[in-house]
């Protein structure tokens, strides 16, 4: 009997030794878990545009983004026109991060010689831990001015005649390191339209996705669906597909799209071109980020 209890005691001592010598690392991790802060999801997309439309990404505080966009003619214009490359429509734009969540941008496009500007604010951020917010949501408020001289020189347009406004809610979620998805309900208001039957107010829903092929290359796709109305009858829904190639401070986006315009009012509500008819255009965006403000090291 005594032998039995002696061996039990020895067994308990061995167990107690193992319990108290539990891994220092486990102890450290448990202690840190007590005071864990939320981790915000980063890099849902590689840059502030999925292809034509905005993504929830915006330049962080102090970063200046320079965006050059080209859209060419359609591939079905044949070899003589070098499959559309002879006909080019561009936009030059800048965006600046006032804070990590709030950025402003402006640009000028060839399409109708339009100047555009926008404010972008990240309302909700996807996070693991903390509140566990499952998606990132941003708001884009944009306005653009068409500065084309009127064809009929007797007609005059006021400044507000030439303006359109776009409001978009961007809702995106990163599903793991490779896949991200975004829904973009959009509202476009055009102050002056050509015909009485044309819509001043147009609603659309955009959807965009990106799939990371490697650390620096991703496959992107984007579609904007016009809700039923005169514009939906007259125009086509914008569909684009392309690659993002990121090289340090640059992101090169190479894609095929049926939209010629690079501004929201243009590619969402005024796209003329059907993929199945070959009205497909090659286009590219180049983004370059300049860090203007060195964050101080504590």
């Amino acid at each position, binding site marked *: 009997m*005594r032998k039995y*209890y002696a061996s*039990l*005691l020895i067994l*308990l*001592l061995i*167990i*107690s*030794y193992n*319990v*108290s010598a539990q*891994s*220092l*690392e486990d*102890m*450290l*991790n448990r*202690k*840190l878990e007590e*005071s864990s802060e939320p*981790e915000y999801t*980063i*890099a849902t997309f590689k840059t502030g545009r999925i292809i034509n439309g905005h993504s929830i990404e915006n*330049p*962080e*505080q*102090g*970063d200046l983004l320079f965006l050059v966009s080209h859209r060419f003619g359609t591939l079905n214009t044949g070899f003589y026109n070098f499959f559309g490359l002879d006909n080019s429509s561009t936009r030059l734009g800048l965006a600046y*991060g006032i804070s*990590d969540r709030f950025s402003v941008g402006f640009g000028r496009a060839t399409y109708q010689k339009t100047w555009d500007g926008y404010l972008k604010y990240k309302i909700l951020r996807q996070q693991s831990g903390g509140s566990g917010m499952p998606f990132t949501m941003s708001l884009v408020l944009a306005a653009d001015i068409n500065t084309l001289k009127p064809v009929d020189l007797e007609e005059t347009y006021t400044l507000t005649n030439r303006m359109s406004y776009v409001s978009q809610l961007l809702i995106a979620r990163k599903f793991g*390191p490779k896949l991200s998805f975004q829904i973009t309900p959009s509202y476009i208001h055009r102050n002056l339209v050509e015909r009485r039957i044309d819509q001043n107010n147009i609603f659309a829903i955009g959807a965009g996705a990106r799939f990371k092929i490697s*650390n*620096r290359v991703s496959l992107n796709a984007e579609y904007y669906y016009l809700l039923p109305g005169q514009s939906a009858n007259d125009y086509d829904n914008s569909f684009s597909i392309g690659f993002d190639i*990121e*090289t*340090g*401070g640059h992101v090169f986006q190479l894609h095929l799209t049926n939209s010629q315009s690079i501004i929201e009012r243009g590619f969402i509500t005024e796209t003329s071109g059907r993929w199945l008819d070959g009205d497909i255009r090659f286009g590219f965006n180049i983004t370059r*980020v*300049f*860090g203007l403000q*060195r*964050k101080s*090291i*504590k």
Partner: protein
Amino acid sequence: MAMKVSLFAVLMVIMSGYKQQENLFFTDSGHVEFSSDAPLEYIQASSNELAGILNINDLSFSFTVPMVSFQGFNSALQRTHFNENYIESEKFPNSTFNGKIIEEIDFASPGTYHIRAKGLLNVHGVDNDKIIRCTIQVETGRISVESSFKVPLDEHKIKIPSIVQQKIAEVIDVSIRFEMEPMNP
């Protein structure tokens, strides 16, 4: 008799647990700084979230730092790339160093000691044996540590694409400093 023995055994277990806690020192606000000195670019970043436990009885330690806590860099985008493309912080959120101090130090006697910490450094999910020289200052109720060491990126399978080879150093200089206090159980 059986009751006395098992009671004694239970007491031993409980007491060994308590005794353990008095010998642990802890920090959760240690400073880590690293720099990359390459021909075309100099990059520097730091974190104040180095956490660790030191057992002054058996000289073992465990340290961890969350990679997303590093700030500095030459632009916010560079910091995003650091986490997304190089460290892959979603897969490997922390860098850790676990091991033992080689020299037998008596932490009861205050003074300055130069020691070598030997252990496994884990960065980007890859373990590497490392001996890190540190300067420890022991005072009653506080242990201060300072150290500098180098981390070659390929030892931890962190790839530098050829396009940025002139902008990122192959060996990163790291320096740390922190103060530890007895850990509250």
